[in-house]
């Protein structure tokens, strides 16, 4: 596998792997570090001429193991969190990470004000009235922002290529 092919795999799997690790570690810095280390080690392996049949599975397994090691090193008080983590990577967890990545990218791509309203509502739990007062915009505008945000997030999860045709009423 050459560098260009590896880049394709990287582009495809980087954010989902970050979401996967973030669910385990709940720390963005540790997550970034571990995912990058995993890609570095895979690339070094590929450069030696070794072939990896399923790079995606290999990467998930690598990230998974590094997360477990990191949790043990951090000596977390909540040892239950380590025990709850499966020793293998489940297909459902991969699907979840991919869905998380799509939504993360969709939130990243929201218009700035729209994103701000959305996060104030869903993350911080503010009511539309509270957001309206905080940002000094009308409640109607808040509702429009929220509608736009949800529409974009749901559209992002729709399978690509699906088109909706509107037939004019004759």
């Amino acid at each position, binding site marked *: 596998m050459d560098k260009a092919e590896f880049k394709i795999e990287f582009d495809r799997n980087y954010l989902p792997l970050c979401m996967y690790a973030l669910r385990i570690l709940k720390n963005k810095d540790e997550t970034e570090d571990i995912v990058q280390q995993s890609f570095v080690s895979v690339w070094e392996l590929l450069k030696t001429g070794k072939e990896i049949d399923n790079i995606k599975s290999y990467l998930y397994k690598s990230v998974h193991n590094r997360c477990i090691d990191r949790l043990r090193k951090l000596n977390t008080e909540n040892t239950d969190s380590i025990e709850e983590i499966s020793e293998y990577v489940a297909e459902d967890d991969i699907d979840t990470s991919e869905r998380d990545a799509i*939504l993360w990218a969709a939130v990243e791509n929201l218009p700035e004000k729209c994103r701000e309203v959305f996060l104030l509502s*869903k993350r911080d739990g503010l009511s539309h009235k509270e957001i309206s007062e905080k940002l000094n915009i009308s409640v109607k505008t808040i509702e429009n922002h929220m509608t736009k945000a949800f529409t974009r997030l749901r559209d992002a999860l729709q399978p690509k290529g699906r088109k909706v045709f509107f037939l004019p009423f004759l």
Partner: protein
Amino acid sequence: MKTNEEKFEDSMRFVVAHFEKGVFIRHKAWDKIMEKNRFNWRRMLAAASIACAILAASAFIYTSLSPSLHKDAGIIDNIETDPSLTVDGSVSTAKLEFKDAPLSDVVREIETTYGVSISGLPENEPTLTLSYEGSASELVETINDVLNTSLVIEDDIHDETFKDKSK
């Protein structure tokens, strides 16, 4: 089994709880990964250079401090320990070591070291292995005993006994 709506809600809750703009940027991560890869290569090269330098220095120190070995057959060492110098500067006692040394070489070494003249070298060329510390006359006597030779010190100003013999 979660419905699609439940899955959507779960992912949305997770994303909004952790979302931070500017985090997990792909192109930045790619640059870092390639940079780490280059860095590792440089680090290995630096480590190899340091290792070579240490090896070279060790080899230099070893060859400088190790005792030089005589390539000539026979004479291993000729160390003068507490030489007793006479008025004319010749040595009365010395320490000599011979290993499989031809007798002619031994005689030459004794003559040079002690400032004496030795005769009676046999035609055959026996070899001598001996470590000795003492006077020339005692050394010659020892050699004669060991090799059954008849070496004679023609002139030894330090040995009164020998002078008597020469007379």
